[in-house]
């Protein structure tokens, strides 16, 4: 055992506090009323309005049309996050499979072209992407929200590196065992990639969950609002003498944190298991 060093622990404790206190304050403040927060600032102790606030946030019909509830926004965000993560994994796995296992002309060039798109963030291509979607009539649809962002250089790169580390003999054994390209992919590569998939799922789910700009452009219909937009729209009612519903914004923020945290907790275990247990 190593000797316990007080200084190290102090640094660690400070680090934890630094990261945790704002989260705690959000959670605690969300249980106070809007007026209390407006006059008294943020709270670190629990208030009494918690249940009412969360119930209101989840079920209250708001927005211009008057039928956007927190629950709907939560669902939309989940659809975004899951659609992103699953779609990206599927697409980039197949792309990587083609790049690694099939010999075709310019494969390396193609790979580097895909890789180079890492340098181009969404914002760079946002106008053309919007126009394409608009022409296809996919504004205000889940397809329009998810599909244009599915191509993932990061995912393709990760899977390519992983497939390259799978021993060739496995492919040869599968060929002798009578597994064609599709069977080999489904029966061997997909199960072997579980840990990679978990890792990419974490990254991509959170990426999709946190999308703000793209949904903002793609959707004008309030029934497609995501949580990220919802939080913003609550704070936007900054008109006249009205006090913004800080408590509701905080409650939404807390709700917005729950699914990503859950995803990380669930998949991290798989991810670490995959890292420590050698599978090959």
């Amino acid at each position, binding site marked *: 055992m190593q000797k316990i060093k007080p200084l190290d622990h102090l640094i660690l404790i400070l680090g934890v506090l630094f990261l945790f206190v704002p989260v705690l304050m959000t959670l605690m403040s969300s249980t106070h009323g809007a007026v209390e927060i407006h006059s008294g600032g943020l709270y670190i102790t629990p208030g009494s309005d918690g249940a009412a606030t969360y119930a209101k946030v989840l079920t209250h019909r708001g927005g211009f049309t008057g039928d956007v509830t927190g629950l709907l926004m939560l669902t939309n965000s989940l659809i975004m996050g899951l659609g992103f993560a699953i779609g990206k994994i599927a697409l980039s796995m197949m792309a990587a499979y083609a790049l690694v296992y099939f010999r075709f002309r310019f494969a390396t060039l193609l790979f580097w072209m895909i890789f180079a798109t890492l340098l181009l963030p969404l914002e760079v291509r946002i106008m053309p992407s919007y126009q394409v979607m608009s022409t296809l009539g996919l504004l205000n649809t889940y397809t329009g929200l998810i599909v244009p962002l599915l191509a993932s250089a990061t995912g393709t790169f990760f899977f390519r590196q992983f497939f390259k580390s799978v*021993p060739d*003999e*496995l492919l*040869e*054994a*599968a*060929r*002798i*065992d*009578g*597994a064609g390209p599709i*069977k080999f992919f489904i*029966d*061997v590569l997909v*199960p*072997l990639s*579980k840990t990679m998939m978990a890792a990419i799922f974490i990254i991509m789910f959170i990426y999709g969950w946190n999308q703000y700009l793209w949904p903002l452009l793609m959707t004008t219909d309030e029934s497609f609002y995501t949580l990220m937009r919802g939080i913003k729209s609550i704070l936007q009612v900054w008109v006249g003498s009205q006090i913004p519903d800080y408590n509701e914004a905080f409650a939404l923020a807390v709700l917005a944190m729950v699914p990503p945290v859950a995803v990380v907790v669930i998949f991290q275990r798989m991810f670490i298991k995959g890292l420590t*247990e*050698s*599978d*090959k």
Partner: protein
Amino acid sequence: MAHLSLKNVGKTYGGSNQAAVAGVDIEIADGEFIVLVGPSGCGKSTLLRMVAGLETVTDGEIRIGDRVVNQLDPAERDIAMVFQNYALYPHMSVRDNMAYGLKNRKTPKAEIEARVAEAARMLELGPYLDRKPRALSGGQRQRVAMGRAIVRQPAAFLFDEPLSNLDAKLRVTMRMEIRRLQKRLGTTSLYVTHDQLEAMTLADRLVVLNGGRVEQIGAPLEVYRKPASTFVAAFIGSPAMSLLDARFENGQVMVDGHALAPVGNAPGPVTLGLRAEDLRITSTGVPMRVDYVEELGAHRIVHGAIGDQPVAVVDNGGAALAETVHVLVDPAKLHLFETSTGRRMDTRIQAEAVPAQ
């Protein structure tokens, strides 16, 4: 079960003008155990992979049974292969690993189960059927790999250095096991190894490869007793056969100015091959300087030199050796090779050596 025939088989990789394998002709009878042996890079694995269908055949013709298989997919060739690193599917249980090939061939479930059970019984894998490969030892993984081959009941087994990843003791056990299984199943087998001991002990016939070409094909003892070239002579046998520059004088073969044995006459220099166990340390004979001695328990190997050419001698005595000893050889056990080509000079030596005795 089937015979295997390789006719003038060759392989040239694209972009290279040198053949990795060239002009290989082997006829393998049904049930025969053939070992391809040679140093690394001699093309033995390439040849095996061509039979398996994992490499394209650029020259010649490979037949399994009565079918030419050059253009067939590995799965259609009715072969099973055991890889050096086992290549088990890590995410499948032992049972699924063995059953996978059968499932892909749409074998009925009951039959798959029966065959897997039979293979597991033969290989003593019963208790491990539901384990994942990573929970098995190296020897057990090797057995699973063999089981995967056995359940398929293929026309031929292909082994690609299957014992190289095992420790020395296990290698000997598994060697016996492979041989026993193959005898029992009677399946034609092609086995690649760089280990000449493995080759000698397993093979019905050896194929010694060098630089992509066949140096010699024959039963292990035949290859051992009559190596066709200096390459085979040096490769097969441990310690390696000593090869010395020699020449003939008055019907005697002369090494370093000393007459070693009467074998007849031939012009020009020759290469003389001496097996360590054919040499005897005596009081007369050719003087040999002793460099060092390897004690092996049952006998010892004396390494030394005649003149400046290294020689190894097996000696059964336990006495301390002088700095210089004398060695003799039975003239019938000499090996003579043409120095220029490295080919064996067999007929002449036999014809002239016999009357000299």
